[in-house]
């Protein structure tokens, strides 16, 4: 906590505190000056906070837990909730060891700080992403619950005059069986949480065989609030004296404001407070957002072409950029690429082969299209500190960058992380694509709190894209029609190398090719390579990252090879997974779930011609296999059923897993059926959902999920359900129509009914 120890967070006056975050305001107001007590109303003495400054992340119990007199438990989660259920999972894990029913928990996102950097193997790092949350913090959060329980028992021992060894707990209470006495956690908390935290090694964790809440379909904690409009998102944040702002972005990134021809008129428009020239954007501040938006839209701006080289991490959008032309350029990209994975000698085998199967596949750019448009509220306080209500997947990174933008010390920036109205990778630190730099600049300029909301149109203009890829496949078969060699050369740029720059030592971005690499099939000669082509677009992470497209590319070509060799694609997969018990079981599980593998085409009860496709993926430490059943209706692909078996090793909440698989299936289908972010003349063709359709309810199939627990190390859940879906659908469509679908979205292809 060293870097936070000089942080002053006592602010007696919080009259301007956020309306809907008043409890945190109260807690801040009542806390001491020490950093450790920043979230707690339970007077943790400053001296003790200092004495414990060197504690390992995830062990300072009072930084995470507050137990109120009524026994409810407030937990600060290292991970942000955006629909994936992580708040509930955290309550289950901590509650299991604390011995407190998760239903008694209130969970909020923790502020920045070393205490919350609990991700195993990633010291000093904190994100919500990569489907990492539960699997990297499971041990730490269990230990945290156990430490808190030990503290409650120690406090109870003193109050009951009985040795700890005679005490036990039942949910929410410490019990002294010998005397029949007990004390509620709420009664014990003031004394307990003032105690020194015991040695983390001293606590024993519960035997998993005795789990009450972990592995159970515990109800989510946030569902009632989200069903009644009470849940608060960044876009809803309100503080006293707040102004609203809307922006008009330059049509292309890198352009700057020349003049605003009607600036005086804008200033005179109803409700307008002021007009501001920001980097690449006109901002209008007004009493109400609609007035701000109306004026921002009315601004007649002479945009100036970019001059000089772009700032680091910024790309100037060329005036003639077209995604179709860029795809063609990727297709023509010369060379064999840099090797990401190799086994045997694929180039040699392919070179000597009599017959080579070759195909080129395409995956388009896609938008995040989370339903909540980005919004940020910034407030400078009289003491020079900054409060920021900002949707984010990485509070510490936002704190550091916001501090830079505001010109103050990071410790003087308080980051509030509200619930996310969907994220899917949208809320990582993308300064040119997030409104917080604008909110900070405007709040500073007008001397009042300012909330910036990007209209949906401005969001589509500045959203970061999931990379595009054009992948050239070659394969050859042995005499029995089994794959002997496979080569995938993908022309693309990975999201990480796009965001942080290429590795100086020439290491490739693994996210560029994940899903082409890491396949378990026993093909003796394999080569996966990347031809790095820098994109003129700003790239970002999208749910399932490289896997979101690469498994589509690979698994579709796999079926082409199966067809070439006269093999059934399901049987061929089983055969090439022989000896791999985990994946064999998984593939059989999804086959079972679908009533037994049948590829079709067949005629369904309603008379439609249908076929099924199968695909697998190994994303984010989990394994998944999908089967899709499709027909063609009026030239459009209809997916009727989607079966998925998923093996995350071991689980925390089966109900949340099922919900997450449904969600991932929906996004995977949306992508394969409909989504493509197209640019023409340097500008996105779609600026709203009318031109960028996302999966509507009437195209959602029945989804059948089977969770397989192989006992392998715990994998992720938020993303792994997605990657096998697009290829399962594409394989079914290709088989049904006899026409190989080699690009997403399928809406770009025409089919006959």
């Amino acid at each position, binding site marked *: 906590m060293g870097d936070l120890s000089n942080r002053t967070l006592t602010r007696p006056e919080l009259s301007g505190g956020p309306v809907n975050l008043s409890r945190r305001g109260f807690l801040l107001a009542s806390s001491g000056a020490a950093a450790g007590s920043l979230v707690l109303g339970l007077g943790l003495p400053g001296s003790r906070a200092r004495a414990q400054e060197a504690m390992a992340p995830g062990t300072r119990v009072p930084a995470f837990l507050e137990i109120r007199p009524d026994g409810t438990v407030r937990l600060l989660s290292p991970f942000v909730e955006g629909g994936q259920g992580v708040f509930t999972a955290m309550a289950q894990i901590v509650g299991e060891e604390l011995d407190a029913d998760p239903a008694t928990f209130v969970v909020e996102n923790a502020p920045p700080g070393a205490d919350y950097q609990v991700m195993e193997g990633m010291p000093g790092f904190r994100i919500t992403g990569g489907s990492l949350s539960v699997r990297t913090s499971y041990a730490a959060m269990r230990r945290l619950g156990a430490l808190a329980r030990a503290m409650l028992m120690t406090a109870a021992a003193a109050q009951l005059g009985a040795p700890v060894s005679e005490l036990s707990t039942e949910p929410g209470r410490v019990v002294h069986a010998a005397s029949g006495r007990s004390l509620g956690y709420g009664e014990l908390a003031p004394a307990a949480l003032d105690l020194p935290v015991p040695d983390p090694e001293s606590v024993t964790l519960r035997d998993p065989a005795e789990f009450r809440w972990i592995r159970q379909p515990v109800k989510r904690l946030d569902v009632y609030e989200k*069903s009644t409009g009470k849940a608060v998102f960044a876009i809803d944040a309100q503080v006293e004296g707040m102004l609203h702002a809307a922006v008009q972005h330059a049509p292309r990134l890198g352009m700057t404001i020349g003049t605003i021809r009607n600036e005086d008129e804008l200033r005179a428009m109803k409700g307008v407070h002021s007009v501001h020239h920001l980097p690449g954007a006109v901002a209008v501040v007004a009493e109400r957002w609609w007035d701000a938006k109306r004026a921002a839209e009315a601004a007649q701006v002479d945009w100036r072409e970019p001059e000089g080289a772009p700032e680091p991490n910024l790309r100037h959008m060329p005036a003639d950029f077209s995604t179709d032309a860029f795809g063609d350029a990727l297709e023509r990209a010369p060379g064999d690429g840099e090797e990401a994975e190799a086994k045997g000698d694929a180039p040699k085998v392919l070179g000597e082969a009599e017959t080579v199967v070759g195909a080129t596949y395409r995956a388009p750019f896609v938008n995040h299209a989370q339903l909540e448009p980005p919004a940020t509220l910034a407030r400078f306080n009289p003491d020079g500190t900054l409060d920021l209500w900002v949707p984010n997947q990485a509070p510490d990174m936002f704190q550091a960058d916001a501090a830079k933008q505001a010109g103050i010390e990071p410790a003087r920036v308080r980051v509030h992380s509200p619930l996310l*109205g969907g994220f899917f990778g949208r809320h990582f630190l993308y300064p040119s694509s997030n409104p917080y730099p604008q909110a900070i600049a405007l709040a500073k300029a007008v001397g009042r709190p300012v909330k910036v909301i990007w209209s949906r149109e401005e969001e589509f203009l500045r959203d970061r894209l999931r990379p595009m890829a054009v992948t050239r496949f070659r394969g050859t078969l042995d005499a029995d029609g089994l794959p002997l060699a496979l080569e995938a050369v993908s022309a693309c740029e990975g999201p990480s190398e796009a965001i942080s720059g290429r590795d100086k030592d020439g290491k490739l971005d693994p996210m560029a090719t994940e899903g082409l690499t890491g396949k378990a099939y026993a093909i003796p000669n394999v080569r996966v390579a990347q031809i790095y082509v820098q994109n003129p677009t700003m790239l970002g992470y999208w749910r399932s990252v490289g896997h979101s497209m690469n498994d589509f590319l690979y698994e579709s070509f796999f079926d082409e090879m199966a067809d070439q060799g006269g093999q059934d694609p399901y049987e061929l997969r089983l055969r090439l997974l022989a000896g791999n018990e985990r994946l064999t079981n998984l593939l059989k599980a999804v086959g079972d779930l679908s009533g037994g593998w049948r590829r079709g085409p067949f005629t369904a009860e309603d008379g439609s011609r249908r076929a099924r496709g199968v695909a697998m993926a190994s994303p984010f430490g989990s394994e998944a296999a999908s089967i899709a059943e499709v027909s063609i209706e009026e030239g459009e692909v209809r997916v009727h059923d989607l079966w998925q078996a998923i093996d995350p090793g071991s689980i925390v909440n089966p109900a949340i897993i099922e919900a997450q698989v449904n969600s991932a299936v929906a996004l995977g289908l949306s992508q394969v059926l409909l989504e493509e972010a197209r640019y023409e003349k340097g500008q996105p063709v779609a600026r709203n*959902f009318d031109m960028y359709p996302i999966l509507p309810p009437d195209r959602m199939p029945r989804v059948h999920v089977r969770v397989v627990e192989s006992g392998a190390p715990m994998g992720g859940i938020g993303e792994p359900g997605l990657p096998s879906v697009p290829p399962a659908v594409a394989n079914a469509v290709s088989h049904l129509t006899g026409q190989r679908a080699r690009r997403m979205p399928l809406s770009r292809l025409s089919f006959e009914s």
Partner: protein
Amino acid sequence: MELRINRETYSVQSEGDTPLLWVIRDELGLTGTKYGCGIAQCGACSVLVDGVVTRSCVTPVDSVEGSEITTIEAIEADETGRRVVEAWVAHQVPQCGYCQSGQVMAATALLRESPNPSEEEIAAVMVNLCRCGTYNAIKAAMADLADGGERG
């Protein structure tokens, strides 16, 4: 101009052509109704106007003067709305939750109009977008509610 919202009368200052959504959210501070697209594509902004589900982002505020408007904030004051919320909780419908105010409003409007709707009626009305893909959970909750209507 005076507006009737959730059985209370508010006097509002916004221009007549301001979308109802922004009057509700900014001027009245009722932020349960959400902005998703502003062009009647997503349904996040759904409210009831005289019982009819309405996309408030494209509804000029002066067009609803004299109408009885219901927002998500008052949903549990309505018997049908309360049942919808219960079903949403029972089926654990929301994920990120951002679209759900609108989904609940649309469901309530339908069930008030038609207590046991057919699958087709449900499909025709429940058209709001959900980026988290909660469609099957919504369907299951609606099927329960439709049955419940039959029994009751």
